[in-house]
């Protein structure tokens, strides 16, 4: 897909299974919304094909596709009330009045908006508008429902509720959901399959657990959760060397002495008394996070993020142990060296990334 001469999507090759909850996850500008718009029929790809039940639908306009969309800011029709909005697609399809009535009532029950039929759109709360938008799309009984960051405009509490709601609706209706988000937590908790995208390319496709536990490259490792990423060398199967020390690991199949990225999740690291550790470092900062402390430890100039429930004060010398299953080895990629160093870590780190990843295109 090219847009204004710039390549936006490159080599996207995706399969969607029936009744699947699939999420396109990536930072802003990664091409996930563009992918969605191509599927929805609002953009025509400059090359490549979109297949639907084996049929090429490149030339099928949006209004003829059996696909419906929940738009980023809902795009509800302000001149119609709740009922009018939901019944819109059915009226266009020229269904009988009785059937429209019945189907609207059914879907209102599904989204929990019974009794709101004649409310004006702008008298609804954000969450209610969200439900109307979902009902409006679902009432047409599409084979695929596209959701473009549908929860981005809601506050945290409401977002959590709606996540559960969406998952429930998807399971109840048995429809394929294609969900676009930049929120990795949302993606992991709701999806059957997660597609991580960056720079118009698919970085990794897999189940949420696989994506988390076995990221393919530094980008995925960093984008999904927090990761300490270190340079290492794979000496042999199950043997990796980093920080001048050989560790046992569970990965194999690398060329001998291949340089690799080593991922260690902050929550997998256990503190031990300084003398007993594989590595010894100094605590440089401690942040209380509620469930745990985020502790930054300096190991010979390389700062690690460690999440632990044990408190260690600043300036304390600590040791850590790494078990073989805590170490994940990745091939080197274009992202190597860009992520996984917490030298510039600050408490606002999380919020910052979320703010940046707000708008697409």
């Amino acid at each position, binding site marked *: 897909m090219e847009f204004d001469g710039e390549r936006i999507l490159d080599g996207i090759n995706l399969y969607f299974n029936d009744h699947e909850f699939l999420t396109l996850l990536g930072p802003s500008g990664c091409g996930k919304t563009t992918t969605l718009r191509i599927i929805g029929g609002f953009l025509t790809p400059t090359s490549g094909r979109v297949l639907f039940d084996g049929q090429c639908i490149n030339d099928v306009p949006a209004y*003829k596709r059996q696909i419906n969309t929940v738009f980023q800011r809902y795009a509800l029709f302000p001149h119609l009330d709740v009922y009018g909005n939901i019944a819109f697609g059915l009226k266009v399809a020229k269904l009988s009045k009785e059937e429209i009535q019945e189907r609207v009532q059914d879907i209102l029950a599904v989204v929990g908006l019974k009794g709101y039929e004649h409310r004006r759109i702008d008298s609804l709360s954000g969450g209610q508008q969200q439900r109307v938008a979902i009902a409006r799309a679902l009432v047409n009984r599409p084979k695929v429902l596209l959701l473009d960051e549908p929860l981005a405009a809601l506050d945290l509490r409401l977002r959590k509720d709606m996540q559960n709601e969406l998952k429930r609706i998807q399971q109840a209706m048995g429809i394929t959901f294609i969900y676009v988000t930049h929120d990795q937590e949302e993606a992991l908790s709701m999806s059957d399959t997660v597609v991580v995208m960056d720079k118009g390319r698919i970085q990794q496709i897999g189940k949420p657990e696989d994506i988390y536990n076995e990221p393919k490259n530094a980008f995925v490792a960093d984008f999904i959760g927090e990761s300490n990423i270190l340079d290492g060398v794979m000496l042999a199967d199950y043997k990796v060397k980093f920080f001048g020390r050989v560790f046992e690991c569970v990965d194999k199949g690398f060329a001998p002495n291949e340089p690799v990225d080593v991922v260690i999740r902050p929550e997998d690291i256990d503190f031990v008394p300084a003398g007993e550790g594989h590595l010894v470092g100094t605590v440089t900062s401690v942040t209380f996070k509620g469930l745990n402390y985020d502790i930054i430890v300096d190991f010979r100039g390389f700062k690690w993020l460690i999440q632990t429930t044990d408190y260690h004060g600043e300036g304390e010398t600590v040791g850590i142990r790494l078990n073989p299953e805590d170490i994940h080895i990745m091939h080197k990629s274009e992202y190597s060296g860009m992520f996984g160093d917490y030298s510039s870590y600050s408490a606002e780190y999380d919020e910052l990334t979320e703010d940046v990843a707000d708008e697409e295109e």
Partner: protein
Amino acid sequence: MKKTNRILTILIFAFLYLPMLVLIVASFNTGKNLTVFESFTLGNYKDLFQDKDLLGLLGNSLLISILSTAIATGFGTFAAVGIHNLKPRMRKTVMSLTNIPMTNPDIVTGISLSLLFVFIGTTLLHQKESLNFWTLLIAHITFNLPYVILNVMPKLKQMDPALQDAAMDLGCTPAQSFFKVTLHEIMPGIISGAIMAFTMSLDDFVISYFVTGSGFLTLPIEIYSYTKKPMQPRVYAMFTLLFLLIFVLMVVMNLLQIRSERKKTAKQETTKSGRIFRRVCAGFCAVAIFFGAGWLIFSTRQDKVTLNVMNWGQNIADGSDETMDIIAAFEEKYPHIDVNYTTYESNESLYAKLAGGGVTVDLIIPSDYMIARLIDEDMLNPLNFDNIPNYKYVQERFKNTAYDPDNAYSVPYTWGTVGIIYNTKFVDEADVTGWELLWNEKYAGKILMFDNSRDAFGITQFLEGISINTTDTKELQQAANKLAQQNPLVRQYVMDQIYGAMEDENAWIAPYYAGDCMMMMDANENLQFYLPEEQGFNLFIDAMCVPKCSENQKEAELLINFLCEPEISGANMDYICYASPIEGARDHMDEYLAESQVIYPEDSILEKGTSYLFLPPEVNRLMDNLFMEVRISGGDTSESEEEPSALPVILTFAGLGIAAAFLFLPKKKTKRN
């Protein structure tokens, strides 16, 4: 600060609404004088609703504005959507292109449209009458379009583009999504555009004037031609009703808007305002269709001969003020003839209309020198006097005139003199000795002067003892110098504004046509008329002619004959206050007028009058230029041939100012964005 704000607000409202208030008060006034409220009456409204002509013109105006608004709103909305979907750079270009016609002076738009219509109609389609209802409609649609586009565009910009995607997503074709979603979103813009277009169209004069033929006139065109007499009070009544209609319409619309906005927050059911609005729209459309159908039926009624008459404004008795309705009487006598009566405001504008082509006119009533010119340029048909037996009533004095020596082309209609009207309260009788009264420094600032070159030069030439028909450049220069001397004393150069100025005693001395002076004297008893018989004065004759473009010469001659009947002519003069050239007409006139020395001077005096003759165009042009210089510089005009006159300088500065405004204004706007 708050106080000054409030005072300013009140002042602004006063400025905005005071004129309307005066108009409304005037519409209930029994007196004709605007400045004095005599007593309350509804008579003006009664007159209005009995005046079929005026109501017909109002109908025409409404028909044109409603039709053109409806069509322009439709096209404009689609155009706006099209422009909105262009790429940004292209969109900007197209927008400025659509805005240019709006900033274009109306007169330029009017003339260029007129040229185009005449070219297409006459040259390409070989139509007899290329300017008609349809050209007027097209012109109105043309100038309405930008207003609609300008109002709709911002609404399109405000609209969430995802709404269209959403509609398509739910199964709408692009066309359906426009009608089901976009249209609702941009409706406020469409409505305000339509209202703007409607008001623009309703009061347009300049463009309409150039693009309509004699067959279809609108209210503004007619009103602007009321130059010879003050406005009739029934016109105030009509404007009052129009103003109130628009006022009520706007208030209702605002109320509906407020109500629908309140509904947005409250939990209410269906959108009633929308339904009401739809009903109002439907009502408007129905009215437009009704008018349109009526007009079409009316205009295609072919069993009657339509006689197109063009006359000076208010130059025929029309049944008002207990006078006779001459046209109605004529139509009653000849039921197969339908008179279509239109007006012009000067000989020159009549000439321009005829020379421009594209019109069908059967009967015109120009003045002597213009008749000479029309004969000279072969624009008149010789009359068939077998159809005009009443020609025998025409007094010998008005036969074999200088302008039509063979009595072949014209039959006189009225005649009159140009003299001085003055206020006896302020002007010393001893000073009233001749035309020099207009140069008397004692009355500096209280003197009015003709605002047309021929009459202004004529007076000066009588004073200086030069022929009023001179073509000698030196003599014309001499007259111009004399006029320049007068300039510092002149309060204002006027035509019909003379009525107010003299009646309200703002000015004391002015030269004017005797018939009009008679009417002013009627309104203010201090006014007196004086004819400088020793120095000489202009004796003018307006006569009836049939132009070359006529299609119904025989019927025109029937009307000429009818107007020559002494009884009819007399009754006619009662209204227009001029003298009749018809023998015996005086006997049928109101005694007061018939005996008036102002209207009918004694024959011995009349012999000293001189008529204007046709002058070559270059002389007319020279006279116009000299007069313009007199009016602008007021200085010695003899030097002006070497020195650049002030006009180009003023125009240059004005042009630079406008250019600067154009350069700076858009910048500010973009900054704000």
